[in-house]
């Protein structure tokens, strides 16, 4: 039956379209379903999960001490050459020479946030910060020195 098929064709087509239109009308009238995050406005309330990998930072305590011994495990673990550690020799009060970091250079522009350096660190000196707004006007600003000036190695960290 050609005519019957023809009519059921038209009916099926119209019905399927009406189903779709009903669904979009539902969303047009139900604004509570909107999921947009108004990002720059919600900066104050924006909470990123604690594991979010934004950039590598080195924790310093209130005495301006860090936990990095300068073992270069992170430097070796990094696939991109993001981390460069420059070491120096500190003279301890007893007159013993001791290896310590001079500069912990971190190239944010090369970093892929793969977390391998954090995994490699034996003393938990570095960790990932939850910052993510990294854009700057000059690429040189992305090369960071992670240890604060004048900081020392924490007591008891080997």
């Amino acid at each position, binding site marked *: 039956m050609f005519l019957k098929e023809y009519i059921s064709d*038209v009916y099926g087509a119209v019905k399927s*379209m009406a189903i*779709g*239109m009903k*669904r*979009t*009308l539902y*969303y*047009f009238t139900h*604004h509570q*379903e*909107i*999921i*947009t995050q*108004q990002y720059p406005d919600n900066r104050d309330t924006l909470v990123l999960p604690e594991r979010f990998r934004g950039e590598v930072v080195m924790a310093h305590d209130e005495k301006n001490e860090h936990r990095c011994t300068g073992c270069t495990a992170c430097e070796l673990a990094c696939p991109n050459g993001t981390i460069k550690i420059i070491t120096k020799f500190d003279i301890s009060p007893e007159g013993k020479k001791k290896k310590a970091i001079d500069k912990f250079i971190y190239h944010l522009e090369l970093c892929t946030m793969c977390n391998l350096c954090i995994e490699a660190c034996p003393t938990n000196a570095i960790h990932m910060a939850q910052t993510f707004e990294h854009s700057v006007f000059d690429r040189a600003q992305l090369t960071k020195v992670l240890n604060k000036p004048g900081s020392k190695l924490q007591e008891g960290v080997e």
Partner: protein
Amino acid sequence: MWNLSDIAKSVDEWLNSVMSPTWVLVVEMVVIGVLAIALFAVLGLVLVIMERKVAAYMQIRLGPNRVGPKGMLQSLADTVKLLVKEGLTPAGADKFLFNLAPFIAMITAMLLLAPLAFAKDFQIWDLNIGVLYITAVSSLSVIGILMAGWSSNNKYSLLGAMRSGAQIVSYELSAGLAIMTVVILTGSLQMSEIVKSQADGWWLFKGHIPAIISFVIFIIAVTAETNRAPFDLAEAESELTAGFHTEYSGMKFALFFLAEYINVFIVCAVGATLFLGGWMPFHIGNWEGFNHVMDYIPSSIWFFGKTFFLIFVIMWFRWTFPRLRIDQLLNLEWKYLLPISMLNILVVTLIAIKGWHF
């Protein structure tokens, strides 16, 4: 109660009292021209923001919300941006046709404004073949698109223009036939007559099922004729990047953009006039109180309300459906819409002759 026709009448009387009739005509034409352009600008802004908001809510997002209250001035900012943008002409383009095409598209859209009845007795030109005039002039819009596609020296544009040509020419048939049903029922081509004939009920309700069928066909056909999704094959951004206006930028692009929205407005206004009673208020049988309240709403509000409802329906289509393929598009017209509307017109003629409509 004051309304638009009274204002027009008093302006006309005042002008007649201060100058000779020839000058009155000139001044009135200028005033109408300025008003038409102003209406276009406002419509463009309103329809763009409306489309973006409708799209946003259907797509569970907020849409423009930065410029002005709730983002309502966003399209104004966009217009300023388009105005100050450089209008490039590609090196290999046919410069004359390339620059002419957007104006053709725009002028065609403008010409269609003439016979529309915006409110009770408020019409630019109530010519006695109004409906014929609209179907005739609206088919000119394809020339602008073909011209743009051919002169751009871009293969995407060319393909888009050719698709558009095939599409508009075929869909005009069923749009015309759908319009014919109302003409048959009314017995007049004049817009004001058609509106008057719906004083006791809209044709959509009075004409039984055939009128509803022809209304649906009309909506589908004009969606295709104005190159709106799901029939936006002329632009088809995932296939032809932007179709016939790939090479246009700045104000020339804005004119195409505006022309599209004006065309949507006009076809919806025509649809509202023919099927939904134009500026006639909504009446139910003999509910005196209800009808009186409805009469109290100004006729221009009725007209624009109905038109914008139809515009919403067309936008609703756009944000729900995928696009058709070119051969399916033509199949739909020649295998489905045209036979159905031809059969439909026979039924409507029968109804009109027998006087079965209300």
